């Protein structure tokens, strides 16, 4: 994890939304480096641009200006299908509202990124089993999402995010829709994944959860306002 090989480098990143004559400056000149294996929390008040930043990190959206280098690869100029490919291989998403697909079983949900990768069925099966094992949901593989509790659904979503062995896990308020007990459990799971070597960028406005992270990035009105290193302590 040397300095020269930062996983993510953002320089002068700006995002402006144009809607019906209204310009919203969601992000204004963000500079950021995230190293491989880091666990970064992003916090700040609602509407300050956290989700927008995460969307750009996840190649769901593109910046209005600035550069984004992922794995030494400038990605802001890629075309749509190249971006889809990078989302599929390099990025794992965990959403606030789980976003499991209701028509698909737990197993099929987890399998989806591998299906889009064109992986052979036998390998998919092995990998999904492994990922579900990791989040403790292997016994629910044949269930539909609607048959699971919120906490269980988010664990499945985590399994789906990590099954493709991405370079980075992006989580947008992963505990926002969970009670504190289930929230804690998901946080512990992420912490464990981090200790296993995963790079994690998590949006949260709950300082209790931010303490798991190596460092917290504070945002206000589309800017990074303060960056304080927090010593990595075992919880």
């Amino acid at each position, binding site marked *: 994890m040397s300095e020269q090989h930062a996983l993510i480098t953002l320089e002068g990143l700006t995002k402006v939304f144009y809607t019906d004559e209204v310009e919203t400056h969601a992000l204004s000149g963000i500079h950021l480096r995230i190293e491989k294996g880091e666990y970064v929390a992003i916090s700040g008040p609602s509407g300050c641009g956290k989700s927008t930043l995460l969307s750009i990190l*996840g190649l769901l*959206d593109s910046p209005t200006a600035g550069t984004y280098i992922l794995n030494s690869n400038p990605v802001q100029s890629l075309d749509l*299908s190249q971006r*889809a*490919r990078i*989302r*599929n291989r390099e990025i794992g998403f965990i*959403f606030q509202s789980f*976003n499991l697909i*209701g028509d698909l079983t737990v197993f099929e949900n987890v399998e989806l990124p591998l299906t889009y990768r064109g992986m052979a069925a036998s390998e998919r099966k092995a990998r999904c089993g492994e990922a579900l094992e990791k989040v403790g949901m292997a016994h629910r593989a044949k269930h539909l999402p609607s048959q699971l509790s919120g906490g269980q659904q988010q664990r499945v979503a985590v399994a789906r995010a990590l099954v493709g062995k991405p370079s980075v896990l992006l989580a947008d308020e992963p505990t926002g829709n969970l009670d504190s007990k289930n929230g804690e459990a998901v946080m512990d799971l992420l912490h464990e994944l981090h200790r296993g070597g995963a790079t994690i960028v998590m949006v949260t406005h709950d300082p209790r959860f931010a303490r798991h992270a190596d460092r917290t990035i504070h945002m206000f009105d589309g800017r990074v306002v303060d960056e304080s290193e927090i010593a990595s302590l075992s919880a």
Partner: protein
Amino acid sequence: MDSLLTDVRQALRALRRAPGFALTAIAAIGLGLGANTAVFTAVHAFLLRALPFPEPERLVFVYQANPARGIERDVTSIPNFEDWRRESHSFTAMAGVDTRRMALAGGREPEPQALTVATVSANYFDLLGVAPALGRGFSAGEDAGEYPETIVISDALWRSRFGGDPGVVGRSVRLDERPATVVGVGPPGFAWPDGVEAWVPLTASPQDREQRGALFLPVIARIKPGVTLEASQADMRRVGAELARRYPRPNEGWTADVQPAHGELVRDYRAALLVLMGAVALILLIACANVANLLLVRAAARARELSTRSALGASRLRLVRQLLTESLVLALAGGALGFGLGFGGIEALRALSPVPLPAWVELRPDASVLAFCAALTVLTTLGFGLFPALFASRAPLASGARIAGDPARRAQRGFVVAQVGLAFALLACAGLLLRSFERLSATSPGFEATGAVAARMRLPDTRYTRERRIQYADEALARLRALPGVEAAAAVQTVPLPASTTTPGYAWRTSPSPPPTSARSPASTRSRRATSRRWAFRCCGAAASTSATAATIAWWP
């Protein structure tokens, strides 16, 4: 392949979870495809499938034409026909084919039977390339006499009147009171010209063979291999001009023309079929707009799912493919339903047809109809599925749940407008059709048709001399006039507005100067039925060419 199966499986599951949507969509597509399948089956049977004879593209009709008088197609006379046959170079064979009513006695039934008989040149069967199923066709010279002495019966007549007797060949029967021998039985289903029940040689009296101006004979021919239609037309124009020069008396101004047989036979159906095809295409478009609208509503509801899939690495192409797979599953179910409905629709078309369909038209869905249905199903999939798929998959992520905003609603409104527009177009077409039909029905035939009943009869000249026929007519008229409800009755040689010029006048000949046509009675159907107790009543589709209450009555002593 593997992922395609996955798509299909997921599509099936998604549709099962939305049965209301799926069934509505399948019903709409099924109706649209069903109507198209049925009408295409008819288009295919009439316009696209060749006539059921060997090398059918070489079969032609040969006409007399008189450009100066605006006559493009007319029948000819025996002398002209014989000169055509002798002096043209473009044909392997040429045959006269007339139809007439004849009385057949013999076989199982004691009663004589009125038959529609084709009187044909002896080479007729060879020209068509049709071999009788039993016995033979006609031999050269059999058409040289004055009266037919041989007869080939149709398969249907063989079964109905002769009980399918395999020993029928060689049997003696009586044709219009003269002896004749059954020499052959036509192959099953063969009835050409349409509706004939038997064939006899084209015989004629010596006087008729001299009557160059007596135009009554339709002529078919087979073009030689390697000779183009244009060359044969030029050939016949040459022969026609030569005959006009040689026999100016009747032939002045007349020439001869050649037209492909199939095109001529379907001429009257083409426009109607194409209008129908257009109408059902509109119906399918309306169905597509409907289903597209439903899909858009569904896409809005699925915005989050599509965003998630995209976040997990599905490219736009992949999303479009998944959505189109769903549409294809819907369309295939609709297509299967449509093919089934098409089957039923064909029967409905048959039942709705005001005249019996020609026997050479085989209204059955075959491989090409199935192929058409399949191709249309795929097109339909794109028709209703492509826009919603492109719409739903366009950058589903950037704005996340905000996707279902105004653009979707605007697109839906567009589809509704399209549906309403198409429905109006369809209604307008239907209205125009009805209106022209109404005009046609309201057009006066030139005489007061209400209450008029026409009867045709044939008195064999073997038994009825000219004097006896006149006597017969006078007596028949007297008895008719005496019937209650009959206002007036008259005899005429040719019934007004016959079905076509090629339908022979088998109306009876009578008084030297025919009285004005006024076979009129205010009789309702009821009293006509009463009349029919003494007169065998036969409604003949071919004769019902006017909207008047025309009926053909066949009466046998």
